[in-house]
């Protein structure tokens, strides 16, 4: 029995999404969000939407992560709540 490729990607996406909102360190949350974007990119490519996958990889995982880190430099790294 082989596990379908899209099921594995789906499990990784859900793990990354839950980890990104529960982790205490904001820099780690940004990095996990970047990993989430890459798994979403793999999912789009598996579904045949190569153009959407390209946009997800370049915009969300590339520039989006950089903008979050630039915003993090203006605040504290640890959450207060």
């Amino acid at each position, binding site marked *: 029995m082989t596990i379908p490729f899209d099921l594995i990607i789906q499990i990784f996406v859900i793990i990354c999404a839950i980890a990104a909102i529960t982790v205490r360190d904001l820099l780690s949350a940004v990095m996990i969000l970047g990993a989430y974007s890459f798994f979403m990119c793999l999912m789009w490519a598996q579904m045949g939407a*190569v153009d959407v*996958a*390209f946009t997800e990889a*370049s*915009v969300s995982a*590339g*520039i989006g992560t950089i*903008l979050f880190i*630039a915003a993090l430099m*203006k605040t504290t790294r640890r959450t207060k709540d």
Partner: protein
Amino acid sequence: MIIRGEDIIIKTISRVLVPFIQLYALYVIMHGHYSPGGGFQGGVILGASMVLLFITHGYAEVNRKFSENIAVLFSSIGVLIYSGIGFLCLLLLGNYLDYSKLYKILSVDPAHARSLGILGVEIGVGFAVMAVMFSIFFDISTGGVSPDDEEEAE
């Protein structure tokens, strides 16, 4: 505020890597009309290469090569190319962005003129997206205040 670092490994590797990233971005823009990619994605990759230079080499060096005023100018030029091609098609008695009418001034057949018109629009979108992405990062990392102004205030 991002200041100039002193790590020679990071600076050298980023200086070697930036031209290849920009070459790949130009490839994505140029092949956007018949393969995945296009003006938006290529422009984002081109902007990301500028951001990499900003992170590794600091504000002062990037501001000398590609300042914020030039970024604003480039974004306006990109929009001008896009809308200019659109209005050129209107002047040639077609619809807005009807590239096939461009064959009258390009001296090629209408199908080829359509391909060239889309390429021109992709180049305009690439310019605008590259400048705007760099400008957003510039504003977030400096907080809207350039270090030159701070020095004058002190």
